[in-house]
């Protein structure tokens, strides 16, 4: 039983504790700011959280760098509607995150 719990613990840690490759970090900040001037790490992380919680319900997440900014601008109006996001602030944070991490 102990062994089973240990294995379970390992599996869950692989999933949760590994820092996501999509999560914005310090090192990426200059690159992100080139695409979205003035974006802060905190704001980008907030956008990432909104993305994870709101955009993986109907399909798996699409990698942000699968699209250019103009590509995202094309799909986002429809998808924001589908995700029923209404707060202007949330929408802006989500957009900024995707733009900052875009192709």
């Amino acid at each position: 039983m102990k062994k089973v719990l240990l294995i379970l613990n390992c599996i869950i840690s692989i999933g949760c504790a590994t820092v996501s490759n999509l999560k914005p970090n310090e090192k990426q900040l200059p690159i992100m700011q080139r695409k979205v001037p003035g974006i802060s790490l905190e704001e980008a992380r907030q956008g990432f959280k909104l993305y994870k919680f709101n955009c993986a319900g109907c399909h798996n997440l699409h990698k942000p760098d699968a699209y250019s900014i103009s590509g995202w601008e094309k799909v986002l109006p429809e998808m924001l509607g589908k995700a029923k996001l209404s707060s202007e602030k949330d929408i802006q944070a989500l957009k900024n995150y995707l733009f900052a991490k875009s192709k």
Partner: protein
Amino acid sequence: MKRIVIITVAVFSFLLSHAQDRNFARTYQTNVLSKGAIDLEFWHTSRFGHSGQYFHAQDQRIEVEFGLGKNWQTAFYFNRYQERYSTSLNGTTTSNEIGFSNEWKVKLSDPVANKLGVALYSEWSIKGGDELELETKLILDKVIGKNLFAFNGVYELEKEFEWVNGRLNSDGSEMPLEFDLAYMYNANKKFGIGFELRNHNKIGKVNGWEHSVLFGGPTINFRSNRWFVIANYLPQWGNVYKTDIAPGNKVLDELERAEARILVGISL
């Protein structure tokens, strides 16, 4: 069944939004609905083929799923179970039962954003008024481009209750342990094809580990903006852990020769 078909068609023609992207008929993925989203699913499972006996079981479920936000999801099911089997050379019996289930699921990590998608799942059911089932699952999945991999470890506890002289008595309990492994190639937005493997282990209080049976078969998935349909055919391959209780190459008294499931989903 007829009524389910009519309801399905009716709801289909009225609804114009997309359902949750479920890919497999049996194996669960870590996806949860986003907050406020509601999904409706219709399940039909046929199980058939016992040795030396005509046997056909049909399980039907109607499921309503709710996204609760923060990666939590709950669902309620209404279930109908029908079994038809031969009792003698030319006699058959049909038994009908109904049931209710409630599931809870929480997603801990994402199959795209993290190295591994992880979710925990638990479901309780009452069946026919005298049976209680508890099911817990560990769900893992991973997306690599168009390839989707999923694994479930499932632990069940089934307990039957009986009123005897005004007291609630519990006789048998069963603790099946199951592992599901699934792969799907999502060729495009509308279509995926893959297979599911199921390993069912019966572990009883009295007799210990009785058998370990492998099933496996193809799954196809069609989806559009408004709905999805998933079909799977799952024949029994064989018993890989033979015991005195289950000495044969296959287990064909408690389990079936094959199982077919069709699942239709729409979003509200």
